[in-house]
């Protein structure tokens, strides 16, 4: 039988080779299929043989090695393919972990591995079918992965099951522990095999046991003859059967046990014991121990020797005595060292209606169930492990004994005790090996919120309608009455059961809630406005979570609409020629909400974020409903008109401003023909009677800081303007304090936000919290620093600000022009003199547009004498309010120095002037200081000295105070701030006085005019100059001029 079988196998093998090589006859194939099981078994052998040959060949040297390896690899592949054709399933893919690092070694890769052998870590490097590392390569590899540089010693080669020997080095656990734990924690290099990571994780679990105090002493006995034994103290792990350790046992990679061949369970136990031994030995080394007894004969001697020899050194004692002590120690610790110990369950049940928290202790049974501890104790026989665990629990949690023997394992806890068990005692009991089951307790304290429930008997009509209100307080999702709050306040650890578990309540919050509810009880009825004020924290006692308004009232409807406003945001509103950014679309939706609710509001977008287009989009949408009045500083009236023409060309816009504006009698007719009337603050005040006689649908105050003083004439007079919706636009709603915000809020919604003192008191003087409270309801605030806003902004924003001319400026301007004309008209004047006079006059006129003192240096104060200076002061104020920095460029260095001194006086912040008269060192210092500065700051620079080469990215605002003929020079100046390193959007303001030389320069800069047309209006010859043409080229144009605007 066996002989016949041999012959058959030989034939079968021949058939396999033929078929695998693709030369097999039909007979060969039939032979393979005749007994597929035998064929597959033989195939397995042949594959294994060839793979072994492959490993051997790979370790060879020589230039033919590659070819032989390829040949054998091809053979293995052919044999496997044949096995597959005979029905052998394909080899599974190795699983991957975390989607990235492979759990198993990659075939063909030599990796570092460790084996656990006789209490030592044995390192070697190999892989499936690879050439193992030599000793030198292994040392280098260990160094690469951060293994300890010392402590390694030679170890016999590790024999791998495929017959390959891997050179190895060994190290003690003491020397390797730190490295292994780091690798196990995935903090070290990851270029190691799975066995290294596993040993590191296992060592880490042993460290966890030691760190939690889960180590106990034992006494090892070694008979030494003649009735004596050697004894050694050894520490061993306790509670070493955690789910993590069990999972590690199941996950042990093959290389770990390749030297000793132990089971995973014994290997894990051995590794953990070794780590515990290393750490406890280190700790004992740091203790001062008494001297050992010279002779150990009694159990007391054993105790003394045990103390003195806690470092593990051996002592001799009579076997009978020392064995008894050893046994009693083992018995003493068995309840925490036994792998099969019963894990008692301490269960805390949430209180029922009686408010009593009940703790019960249960013991596990053999059937994977539990039973009351009392029954388990009574049923127990033999070693009584449950009794031992119960005794431990009684020591760890003495409260459990309070019920006495009749109700063993059942106690009622007060709320304070329950809190203690959930937070402190419970985790400690878990660390001691008990199973603690308590209701979920949130780790954070509950946030209190006042709930106002409003009920209106009548139809919801307006802010003055009275509603019945009821008050309660919410702690997370738990609603409490004042009685319940009082009850909780009496407890040391107040707890409430929220939807997601139990939550602790802060006593201070309870006190605040009680006070708020007490105050609410006196308020049985509130108007809509009062309810709204409560909702935003402007009335009543504020709780941390604010106020939630429920029920049915005017205020609840307003709040619901405000909440839903953003859902109607659109970036391309009807009638608007352009696209709004996301935050502008939201702002437009918010203005729509105000319009529908009959409320006013403050649109507080940062400077440069596009308030004007946003409001124009709203005005374009509502022009059919009613007309709008826009009141703005004179400097931006032109901008409003230009933006309206650009973004809402269908709007009929009238600019009511200047000497040629419509008279009171004409105004009504003019307004009748308009959708939007744009005027200045001063004109509005001057013509207030006429304007107040019109019913406006929308009133817009741009740069609404103008009304921040409610007692000012401007604020008082503008209050007379009746409008269904009042909008205040400002980039800085709070410049000097909460009073600014109140003034604006009270203007747009008279009476709604309460009195000024109450407003400031309720907001606790905190500007940011005030803005937060109002945001989205009575105020819409977005800043450039918000990432989602910044993401939509261009790198730079260029703004053109039209500035007024004061009476002094106009008079001086005219005088210079008249003198020029007279000069040029002088028949004695020759061409060169005329040319020089004109050029000098151009410079003089530009200086006058800047400031009279820039042309004719005087000692008089600068304030109030220049429209440009007034506008600059406004810009600087806004920039400083936002804690940002600004550069101010001027062409005139002397004027720059006066400007810097003036701004220093006005703002109280030292502001320097950078110009060519300074030494290089001083200039460098100015730049360094400005760049290093934080918060509000400014630097004035002469265009010539500071326009190029400097890096001033600390600033994100630039003002070009006067214009230069070449736009590239201005771009270079702006680019001091807008350059590499700048993280924010740079806003650049160009100040221009319309109707003056300034505007002519602007036209030249814009490419609409050549400079020659100014100097030589008609021909290239100076002699041809006509004085009328000169006046036209350089003179004031009253229809374009923004004259000083005094009410």
């Amino acid at each position, binding site marked *: 039988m066996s002989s016949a079988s*041999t012959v058959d196998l*030989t034939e079968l*093998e*021949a058939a396999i*080779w*033929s078929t695998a090589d693709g030369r097999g006859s039909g007979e060969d194939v039939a032979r393979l299929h005749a007994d597929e099981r035998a064929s597959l078994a033989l195939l397995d*052998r*042949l594959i294994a043989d060839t793979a072994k040959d492959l490993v051997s060949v790979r370790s060879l040297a020589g230039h033919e090695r590659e070819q032989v390896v390829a040949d054998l690899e091809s053979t293995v592949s052919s044999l496997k393919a044949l096995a597959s054709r005979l029905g052998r399933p394909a080899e599974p893919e190795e*699983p991957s972990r975390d989607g990235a690092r492979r*759990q*198993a070694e990659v*075939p063909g890769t030599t990796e570092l591995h460790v084996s656990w052998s006789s209490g030592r870590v044995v390192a070697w490097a190999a892989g*499936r079918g690879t050439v193992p590392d030599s000793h030198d390569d292994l040392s280098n590899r260990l160094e690469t992965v951060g293994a300890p540089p010392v402590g390694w010693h030679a170890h016999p080669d590790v024999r791998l*099951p*495929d017959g390959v020997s891997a050179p190895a080095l060994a190290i003690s656990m003491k020397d390797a522990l*730190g490295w292994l*734990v780091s690798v196990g*924690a*995935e*903090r070290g290099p990851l270029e190691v095999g799975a066995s290294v990571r*596993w040993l590191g*994780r296992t060592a*880490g679990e042993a*460290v*966890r046991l*030691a*760190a*939690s*105090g889960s180590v*106990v002493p034992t006494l090892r006995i070694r008979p030494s003859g003649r009735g004596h034994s050697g004894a050694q103290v050894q*520490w061993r792990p306790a*509670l070493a059967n955690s*789910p993590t350790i069990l*999972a590690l046992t199941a*996950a042990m*990679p*093959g290389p770990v046990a390749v030297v000793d061949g132990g089971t995973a369970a014994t290997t894990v136990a051995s590794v953990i014991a070794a780590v515990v031994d290393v*750490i*406890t030995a*280190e*700790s004992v080394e*740091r*203790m001062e121990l008494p001297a050992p007894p010279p002779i150990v004969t009694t*159990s007391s001697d*054993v*105790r003394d020797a*045990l*103390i003195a020899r806690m470092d593990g050194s051996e002592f001799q004692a009579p076997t009978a005595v020392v064995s008894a*002590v050893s046994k*009693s*120690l083992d*018995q*003493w610790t068995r309840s*925490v060292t036994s792998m099969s110990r019963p894990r008692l369950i301490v269960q805390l049940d949430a209180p029922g209606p009686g408010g009593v928290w009940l703790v019960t202790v249960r013991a596990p049974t053999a059937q994977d169930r539990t039973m009351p501890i009392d029954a388990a104790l009574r049923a127990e026989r033999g070693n009584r492990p449950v009794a031992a665990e119960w005794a431990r629990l009684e020591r*760890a949690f003495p409260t459990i004994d309070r019920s006495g023997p009749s109700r063993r394992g059942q106690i009622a806890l007060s709320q304070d005790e329950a809190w203690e068990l959930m937070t402190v005692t419970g985790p*400690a009991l878990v*660390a*001691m090996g008990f199973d603690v089951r308590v209701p979920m307790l949130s*780790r*954070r304290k509950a946030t209190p919120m006042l709930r106002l429930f409003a009920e209106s008997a009548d139809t919801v009509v307006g802010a003055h309608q009275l509603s019945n209100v009821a008050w309660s307080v919410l702690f997370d999702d738990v609603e409490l009455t004042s009685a319940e709050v009082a009850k909780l306040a009496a407890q040391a650890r107040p707890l409430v059961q929220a939807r997601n578990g139990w939550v602790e309540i802060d006593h201070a919050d309870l006190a605040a809630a009680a006070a708020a509810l007490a105050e609410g009880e006196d308020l049985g009825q509130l108007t809509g406005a009062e309810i709204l004020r409560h909702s935003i924290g402007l009335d009543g006692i504020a709780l941390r979570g604010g106020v939630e308004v429920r029920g049915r009232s005017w205020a609840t409807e307003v709040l619901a609409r405000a909440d839903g406003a953003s859902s109607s945001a659109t970036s391309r509103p009807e009638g608007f020629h352009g696209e709004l950014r996301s935050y502008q679309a939201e702002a437009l939706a918010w203005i729509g909400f105000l319009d529908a609710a009959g409320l006013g509001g403050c649109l507080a977008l940062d400077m440069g974020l596009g308030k004007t287009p946003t409001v124009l989009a709203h005005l374009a949408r509502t022009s059919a409903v009613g007309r709008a009045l826009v009141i703005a500083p004179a400097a931006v009236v032109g901008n409003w008109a230009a933006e309206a023409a650009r973004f809402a060309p269908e709007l009929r816009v009238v600019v009511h401003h200047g000497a040629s504006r419509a008279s009171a009698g004409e105004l009504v007719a003019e307004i009748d023909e308009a959708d939007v009337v744009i005027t200045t603050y001063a004109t509005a005040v001057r013509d207030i009677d006429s304007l107040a006689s019109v019913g406006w649908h929308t009133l817009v105050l741009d740069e609404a800081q103008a009304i921040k003083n409610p007692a000012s004439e401007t604020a008082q007079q503008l209050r007379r303007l009746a409008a269904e919706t009042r909008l205040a636009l400002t980039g800085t709603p709070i410049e000097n304090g909460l009073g600014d915000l109140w003034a604006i809020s009270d203007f747009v919604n008279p009476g709604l936000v309460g009195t000024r003192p109450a407003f400031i008191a309720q907001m606790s003087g905190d500007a940011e919290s005030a803005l937060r409270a109002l945001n989205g309801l009575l105020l819409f605030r977005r800043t450039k620093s918000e990432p989602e806003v910044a993401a939509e902004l261009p790198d730079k924003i260029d703004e053109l600000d039209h500035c007024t001319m004061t009476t002094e400026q106009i008079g001086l301007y005219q005088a210079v022009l008249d003198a020029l004309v007279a000069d040029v008209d002088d028949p004695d004047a020759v061409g060169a003199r005329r040319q020089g006079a004109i050029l000098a006059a151009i410079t003089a006129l530009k200086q006058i547009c800047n400031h009279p003192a820039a042309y004719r240096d005087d000692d008089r104060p600068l304030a109030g004498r220049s429209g440009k200076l007034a506008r600059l002061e406004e810009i600087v104020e806004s920039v400083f309010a936002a804690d940002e920095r600004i550069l101010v460029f001027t062409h005139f260095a002397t004027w720059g120095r006066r400007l810097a001194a003036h701004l220093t006086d006005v703002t109280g912040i030292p502001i320097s002037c950078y110009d060519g008269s300074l030494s290089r060192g001083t200039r460098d210092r100015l730049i360094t200081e400005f760049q290093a500065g934080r918060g509000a700051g400014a630097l004035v620079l002469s265009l010539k000295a500071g326009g190029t080469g400097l890096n001033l990215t600390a600033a994100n605002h630039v003002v070009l105070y006067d214009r230069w003929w070449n736009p590239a020079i201005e771009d270079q100046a702006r680019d001091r701030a807008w350059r590499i390193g700048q993280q924010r959007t740079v806003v650049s303001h160009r100040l221009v006085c319309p109707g003056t030389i300034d505007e002519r320069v602007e036209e030249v800069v814009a490419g609409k005019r050549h400079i020659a047309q100014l100097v030589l209006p008609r021909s290239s010859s100076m002699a041809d100059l006509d004085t009328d043409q000169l006046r036209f080229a350089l003179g004031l144009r009253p229809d374009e001029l923004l004259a000083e605007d005094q009410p």
Partner: protein
Amino acid sequence: MNQPRNTRPTSRRPQQNRRPTKPVDVWRPADPLPDLAPITVPDDVSALLRTLGDPPTAGGDILASYFIAVVERTAAIAAAIALSADLLATVDPAV
């Protein structure tokens, strides 16, 4: 295909002296490692030892005090090892 294979003698692959059992595959894929949790050190590291009561020997209370001293020092050293491996749990300031 490599041509020389058709001349391969079958005797080149002896069938005798094979081990009857398949060798252990040292390279087999292992189970994934359990999740890594930070190491916490309880306030009272000797609590577990104290739940056992005093050691059942004469002068057990003295012995217990030494055992407790070892446990406390062991926990301190273990915590230091955990810290150096960035494994030590930090206290959550939000709690």
